[in-house]
Structures are given as C-alpha cells and as structure tokens.
C-alpha cells in the first residue's frame, strides 16, 4: 500500500473515532477571507554554469476560506488566487518580465489528539499560468497531499492561540511541469478570536519548499485571515468573559 493512502486511512480512522467521542455541543463553523502576500523564489540550472539563475517573484493572493469543527475533528477548505510577478535575469536575453498567475485550492482534515497536538491530512492543488514578457509560456498543475502535524498552545488567554504546523507532501503529481521530487510546508500562526463578536483573525507565516530534482523553488509570506464564526464555541467563550462568570 502506498504511504499516502496508508496515512490517509489511518488519519481517517482516527478522525472518525475522535468525532464519535466528541460532545455534540462542540460544533463550530467559520467562513472568511484570506490574503496572502507571497514571494516565490526559483533556483534554475543554466548549463554549463549549473545552479546559476534565481527568480524572485512576489505578489498578493486573495481568497476565501471555510472551516468546520466537530469536537476534536476539524475540516478546512481554502481557495486563493493572484498573480506573482518580477523581473529576472535570463542570460543572453537580458532581463525579462516574468509573471505567474497562481490559483491554490486546499482541503484539510485534522484531529486534535491532545490540547497541544493535532494530526491531519492535507490536499493541495496549485494551478500556475506562466508568462514571460507578456507572452504565454505554458500552464502547470500540481496536486500534492500528505500528513500534517501541528503544535497548539493557548497564549494565556482563551482568545489567543499559537500554532506551529508542518506538512510533508508524500503524494506529488504534476501536469505540464517538471516532476516534484519533494515538497513540504511549515506554518507559524497566531490566532485571535473576539470574545464578544463571532470574529476570528489569524496571522500566519507560510513557507513551502518544492524540489524539482536539482532545481527547486519556494513560496513564502504572510497570510492574514479574517473569519466569521458560527456555532457553539464562540458563544461559550464569549460568556466566559462576562462579569458573572468571573466568579464561579
């Protein structure tokens, strides 16, 4: 059995057990908008010089995100798109203007095993349309998926939470581009949720490394998400800060 399928089945089983054991009142959903200020660094080989060219593209991606939690189990869906651009040196051709129109779709499921640890599985699809000096240069689609782990901590208050996550993409399929030989992602995130209103704001730093054999690239940058929450948890937490509940 392939490692990706085995990991998915194990996590699915764990998620099901956790969902069955979770209290029904701990349900919560959220929808929101996401903005991703991202830089894309690409290292390319230029024979016979070897690893001699680096592209640096940057831009802003915007999108929407949805989340649903049931007890220890939470599901996440996200879509962001945008255009990354920059000027790169291309040998005898001189400097060229390179643009990448990027569309990211993400689906994830994770189970909070302990208060400080969550395990999950993420599927990530990225569509890229490349143009060089306003000339279309092809499109590519990447489909990645793999297990993830996150360390969770409450920052002394119920409305502040920190998270450090790591995803290792064990399944990597590409269409229209070189094969991806290795892929990973790290996330460091701080989340604030209002005690009085069903609003949550998350600030995160995403880093993705993608290897194409001897070449490679990364995507990284700051990500801000604002979500509107619905369900039970926000009301419980909101009530927890009222004057009456300060003295139990």
């Amino acid at each position, binding site marked *: 059995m392939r490692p990706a399928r085995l990991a998915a089945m194990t996590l699915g089983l764990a998620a099901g057990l956790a969902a069955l054991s979770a209290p029904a009142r701990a349900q919560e959903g959220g929808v929101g908008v996401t903005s991703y200020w991202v830089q894309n660094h690409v290292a390319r080989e230029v024979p016979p010089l070897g690893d001699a060219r680096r592209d640096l593209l940057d831009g802003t991606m915007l999108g929407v995100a949805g989340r649903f939690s049931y007890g220890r189990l939470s599901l996440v869906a996200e879509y962001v798109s945008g255009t990354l651009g920059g000027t790169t040196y291309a040998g005898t051709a001189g400097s060229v203007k390179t643009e990448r129109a990027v569309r990211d779709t993400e689906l994830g499921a994770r189970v909070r095993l302990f208060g400080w640890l969550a395990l999950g599985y993420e599927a990530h699809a990225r569509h890229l349309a490349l143009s060089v000096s306003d000339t279309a240069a092809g499109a590519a689609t990447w489909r990645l998926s793999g297990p993830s782990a996150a360390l969770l901590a409450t920052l*002394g208050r119920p409305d502040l939470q*920190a998270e450090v996550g790591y995803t290792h993409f064990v399944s990597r399929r590409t269409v229209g581009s070189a094969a991806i030989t290795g892929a990973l992602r790290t996330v*460091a995130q701080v989340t604030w949720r209002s005690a009085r209103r069903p609003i949550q704001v998350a600030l995160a*730093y995403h880093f993705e490394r993608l290897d194409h054999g001897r070449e490679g690239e990364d995507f990284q940058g700051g990500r801000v998400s604002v979500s509107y929450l619905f369900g039970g948890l926000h009301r419980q937490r909101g009530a927890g800060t009222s004057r009456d509940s300060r003295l139990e």
Partner: protein
Amino acid sequence: MAIFASDAGARPVLSQTLPAGVSATVWWTAREIERSLVPSGSYLLRVAVVDDAGGATTALEWVLLVSRTPADTIAEPPPLDTSAFLPERAIVRMGDPLPMLSGIVTGVAATLLPELLSRPNLRLSAGGNGWRLGVAGVALAAGIFGFVTSEGPQPLAENITTNRALRDQDARDRVLLRDANARAREAAPVRIRAEERAP
C-alpha cells in the same frame, strides 16, 4: 369480615375471620394493614358467613365514606438560589510562563523554520521577507501579553467551607420539615361515615 378499597374486587385493607359463636369487636384505624392512613374515599365493609365447606354468604354490606381533614403542613421551600452562596472561585492572574514560551517558540518557528528547511541555494534570497519577522514579532508580543494578562480560576477555601455548611444546614432543615409534615398528616382527624349499600 373485610374492608375493601372502593369495591369488593380490590385488595382488602382489613380482613379478619372469627369463629362461629364468638362475640368480638373489630377495630379499623383507617389504615391499610400495618401501614399508613388510607386516602379519602369510599370503602366497602363486607361481613360474610363461611360454612364448613368453604361456601360464603354475604350477610352485610356497608359503604364507609372516609374523609381526611387536610393536615396543617408547611410547604417545602424551593432549592437554595445560587445567589445564596458565596463565590467558590475567583479569576486571578496566574503569571504562567507557558504563554510567553509558546509565543517565543512560534516566533522562532516563523523565523528559523524557513531558513532551516529551504534549499541551500535559495537561503540567501529567502531571508528577505519582512513578513517573517512581523509574524514572529506578533507571536512574541502575544505571548508577553498573555503572560501579563493571563487569568485562571483560584479556589476560595473559606467560601467553599461556608457554602458547604449552608448546604448541610439546608439539608437538615428539609429533613426536619418533612418529618414535621409527616407527623401533622398522621395527626390530622379522620372522619368515617357508614351508609348501607344500596341493593
């Protein structure tokens, strides 16, 4: 002789058999056999003669109308309201270092993980994103803020003892009240009127 609740088909609340030729007085204290007072209502008094073969012939039937005077009891008060109790816990600042440590770990992760995990030939260019330091700074600031303002519940032993004494006293008062009401109900007068049963 037997007394039945409402009709002869019911279970007798008193039953007594006397040998022939004996004169006796049978007392009914308006109680079920060795139990509490019967409720108000109509009861059937039946006197029957039983021969040696076991055949019974009804000789007399009367309806006994039992009415109990309502006892002078005291209504049980409602359970103690939460306002009667003192707060058993107070939210106090805890000064827990874990929030600050978590903020530091998150900040370090935002700063160093991309550095450690990026390709060696992209490491130089990867260091130029100001968002990394921004997120690390926010994580650290949030950790410090959480450390300074963190709150947690602290038990108040004196109030817990006082509340326990209040609950115990309330429980004792309720037991005494129930006993007094039971005694009042037992002592309440019972009126019994006998009517010949219509044929």
